[in-house]
């Protein structure tokens, strides 16, 4: 249990996907303009990564390994992710209009969010069993959501700051991201 807990803590804070592994930078910059949409995106990402990781885990161990076609991993995983995202979108649209309104616009973007593919592949290359896979595929996107939310709060303040014209927008946001990465590197060595 403590092992799983430390694994989760490491994934959320220490080896944070965005700040120390450089994954999911595009949505990190794209949907961090206000904190409400940051939360929406975060929840959608957690849901998709959890579902997609379970499916790809089953696919790998029940189909790819028995048939000895592990080299199809990349193609099959990305297809699973794309279809899963599409199905989720259709499902939410049909059953919960309000949820669709708040999450719907972020869902298509998730297909090209590299965190999803990374977690699916990481579960396989690290040789995780089912429980470790579940823990990993919840805690990694949780770390994504945490950083996305913090960053969006900072960016809301940044909008009113007086910056040089060529630094406005993304460049100065990246400087803020650098400072956040510096702060998060202070967590190294906790576990």
């Amino acid at each position, binding site marked *: 249990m403590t092992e799983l807990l430390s694994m989760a803590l490491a994934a959320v804070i220490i080896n944070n996907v965005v*700040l120390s592994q*450089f994954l999911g930078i595009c949505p990190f910059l794209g949907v961090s303009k206000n904190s409400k949409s940051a939360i929406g995106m975060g929840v959608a990402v957690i849901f998709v990564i959890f579902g997609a990781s379970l499916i790809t885990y089953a696919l790998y161990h029940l189909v790819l390994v028995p048939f000895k076609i592990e*080299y*199809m991993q990349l193609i099959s995983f*990305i297809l699973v992710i794309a279809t899963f995202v599409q199905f989720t979108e259709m499902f939410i649209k049909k059953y919960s209009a309000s949820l669709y309104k708040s999450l719907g616009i972020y869902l298509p973007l998730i*297909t090209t969010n590299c965190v999803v593919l990374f977690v699916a*592949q990481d579960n396989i290359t690290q040789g995780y069993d089912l429980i470790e896979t579940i823990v990993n595929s919840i805690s990694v996107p949780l770390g994504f959501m945490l950083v996305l939310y913090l960053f969006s709060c900072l960016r809301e303040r940044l909008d009113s700051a007086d910056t040089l014209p060529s630094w406005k927008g*993304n460049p100065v946001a*990246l400087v803020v991201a650098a400072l956040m990465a510096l702060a998060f590197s202070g967590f190294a060595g906790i576990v």
Partner: protein
Amino acid sequence: MWNNFKNGFIKENPVFGLYLGMCSTLAISTSLNNAVGMGVCVTLVLIFSNVIISAIRKITPDEIRIPVYIVVIATLVTIVEMLVHAFMPELYTSLGVFLSLIVVNCIILGRAEAFASKNGVVASAVDGLGMGLGYTFALLLISVVRELLATGGIAFYNPFDATQQLFAFSLEALKPYTISLFSGSVGAFLTFACFAALFTWIRSRSSKKEAK
């Protein structure tokens, strides 16, 4: 066509202008070797995916075009990954997971959707080459700055044989003052921010000139 090609460098540089493909740019730009390797891989995938997608653009149903594009791209990336694994094992280990993550590099899907699905085969190939070189150019700029500041020199190895050094350069004056922070994520974000601001400045200056 020349303009298509040229656009990829400054005006519509996929990395500094459109902020696409940032994950790999930030992660891979630790050394010149990685930057060149990644740049070549992405350029190859981009050219071939643009050509294939443009060739099948008339028979691809509109509703399922994204999955079709993704399968084409994933196949090409798998081929590139296998080739790199077989012939450049050193590069394969240092690029790591980012090699297979080329699939979700937004530049490739973005170009497929925005250019290759609407234009002819030759124009798409040129667009792929231009965008790929623009991406490589951005990687080179960041990696040179980061490697220089983090190690005080730049070394370039033969990617097919890591023991053979093709090119090495080091600044003795800089050696005592190297900043190891620049090989990590902080340096990556900072260097990127500086270049992004520089490119915005260049663009705004050239558009002012045109306005005059």
